[in-house]
């Protein structure tokens, strides 16, 4: 482990212990903790999506909030009780609509903008995200406009067993500190179910991205990020790869939106505020562009920034409104990361080569086996090349 990894592991452990103690001591309700954990996972999910776009491929996408919103609205339109269109469907159909919507819009935005220079892409995506927000706000016949969509069921509504799970679970009372009983009731089990959904989404996205990142596919994306002309010169259809990364990332963001709709049970156009985009950017930058672990970490840190000011607001020294304090922290974090650690806290460390290939290779390729293929050109006494032939060849994993 690198120093940074050790530090992060230490801090994560400390925070986990502190939260556990807070819960046992009755300071933090387990239900609220699960809610926060779910939010953290939601941001982590969006960060993974942005990581595929910016971290892998170098696409500056400032429309994260729009795809998150499309996911949330896709889920809500199919399931909300006041949905002007469909409403009342099984949430699975909401999930399907959300993903379809995100994919179609991603392609529609991607076709024109992915040809643009990086900074133009940033401006264009931010502008188009605003267009999407305005459409959702103003087309009330489809989206219920500014009143938002309410009466969204939990994701597991209508499923066997799971839909009734929170009600059927017994209320538990855990008393570790005498007189400070922690009660786990229906709402706790409901949040637990939400968190399981989030973990399922997050696990899927993480698995897909990790595999893709280590594959030749991810290598092409990383080449594009570093030098798109080089990728073209090496025969890669860069536009097509950028489109794939853009759509994949957008789908993951929409997944976060679906989760949010069923967590919050209410969505409105305010959920597409561009500030969400920048929260996610902070998460990815902080974690380290291209690092999936970093994106996970960043997602949870961002929720700490988002929700933390609520608590410190009570402390007189920080007697600020949570709103500006949040904004200030995000702003300072952006500036400080760019100034002192632009590569992020957990930048990708290891070589990204398809895992089974590299292990076998190291085992079976004898060091001297292919030497004879070498021509017997004059051996140059080259200082920087032929001297240390021995040392480097073995890969150190």
């Amino acid at each position, binding site marked *: 482990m690198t120093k940074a990894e050790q530090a992060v592991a230490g801090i994560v452990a400390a925070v986990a212990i502190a939260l556990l103690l807070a819960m046992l001591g009755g300071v933090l309700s387990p239900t609220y903790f699960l809610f926060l954990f779910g939010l953290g996972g939601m941001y982590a999910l969006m960060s993974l999506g942005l990581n595929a776009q910016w971290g892998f491929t170098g696409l*500056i996408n400032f429309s994260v909030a729009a795809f998150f919103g499309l996911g949330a609205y896709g889920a809500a339109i199919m399931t909300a009780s006041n949905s002007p269109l469909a409403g009342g469907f099984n949430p699975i159909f909401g999930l399907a609509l959300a993903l379809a919507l995100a994919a179609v819009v991603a392609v529609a935005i991607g076709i*024109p*903008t992915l*040809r*643009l*220079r*990086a*900074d*133009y892409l*940033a*401006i*264009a995506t*931010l*502008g*188009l995200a*605003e*267009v999407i927000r*305005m*459409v959702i*706000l*103003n087309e009330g016949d489809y989206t219920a406009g500014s009143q938002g969509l309410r009466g969204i069921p939990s994701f597991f509504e209508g499923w066997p067993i799971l839909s009734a799970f929170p009600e059927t679970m017994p209320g538990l009372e855990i008393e570790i500190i005498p007189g400070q009983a922690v009660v786990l009731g229906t709402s706790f089990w409901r949040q637990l179910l939400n968190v399981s959904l989030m973990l399922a989404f997050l696990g899927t996205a993480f698995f897909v991205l990790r595999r893709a990142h280590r594959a030749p596919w991810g290598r092409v994306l990383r080449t594009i990020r570093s030098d798109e002309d080089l990728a073209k010169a090496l025969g890669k259809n860069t536009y097509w790869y950028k489109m794939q990364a853009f759509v994949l990332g957008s789908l993951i963001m929409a997944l976060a939106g679906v989760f949010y709709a069923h967590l919050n049970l209410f969505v409105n156009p305010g959920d597409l505020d561009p500030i969400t985009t*920048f929260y996610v*950017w902070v998460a990815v*930058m902080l974690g380290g562009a291209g690092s999936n672990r970093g994106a996970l970490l960043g997602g949870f840190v961002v929720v700490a920034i988002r929700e933390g000011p609520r608590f410190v607001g009570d402390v007189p020294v920080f007697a*600020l*409104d949570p*709103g*500006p*304090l*949040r*904004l*200030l922290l*995000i*702003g*300072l*974090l*952006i*500036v400080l990361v*760019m*100034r002192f650690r*632009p590569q992020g806290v957990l930048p990708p460390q290891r070589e990204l080569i398809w895992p089974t290939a590299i292990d076998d290779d190291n085992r079976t390729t004898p060091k001297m086996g292919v030497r004879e293929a070498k021509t017997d050109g004059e051996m140059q006494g080259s200082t920087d090349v032929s001297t240390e032939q021995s040392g480097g060849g073995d890969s150190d994993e």
Partner: protein
Amino acid sequence: MAVTEQFLELAANGVVYSSIIVLCSIGLSLIYSISGFANFAHGDTMTVGAYATLVAFGAIGGIGFSVLSLPLGFFLAVVIGIAITAVVALVTERIVYKPLQIGSLGLLITSIGIAFIYRALIQVGFSAGTYRYELEALRPIDALVQYGIRVTEHDVAIVISTIVLVVGLHILLQHTDLGRKMRATADNPDLARASGIRTRNVELWTWTIGAGLAGAGGAFLGLFNQLVPRMGFNELLIIFAAVILGGIGSVYGAMLGGFLIGMIVEMTPILSTVGIPIGSEYGAAIAFVIMVLVLLVRPEGIAGQAVGGEGG
């Protein structure tokens, strides 16, 4: 007849709004080409100008004679607001942007952080509520109402002040040594450096002028609407649209782009009157779509080449 009246009213409003966008576009365009990055803090720089003017006006008060129902004190306050905005931008440039070694994309992202810091500090100091300058609310000018035009004397003051500032900038650019260097640097920074222009000096002046104009734009936006912490950020994309339409790096392009985009945003209601089913709420959306189209079809903007080379 009704269409004509609506047209005149919207056009008059559009001219006032465009004036503000023009002021802000010039600065964003200059900074974009001379410092080499898209400054996402430019909108919040406007906000700084508006609140600085508010504070200055509160301190000075409505002293002196009035022009167009605005006391001399207000104009003084605007000048102080401009100065404070320029200082804030220069300090930011010096302690934040300058030490960074991360390329234009890193600067772009950093500027978002700066935007949030400006806005957060304004919210801390002034709360998230709305403010107005302590001026008497005006009725539209009677002489114009009969033509359907509803503008106040304050609106006229905004337009005239903009004209004064733009003409001043024009004289600076065309007839001073600094102006020539700025145009040359905006046109081609590498060439300018190669031909011995001290670009650092030019860069600092660019920030001063660009932020100062944004400060003026913000102060006038506060007069046109009201002051809220998000006022500048809300206009940011409109200003980007103007700059891109005009051509990045071209001062005169930014003026033209600012005027056109401002008019388009304000004139959108005319569309539904003439039968095109696009509501007035999509004014900004139209501007953003135009922006994307320009980026795709003519990234150098309408005036990109022509005006940039004109003075050389």
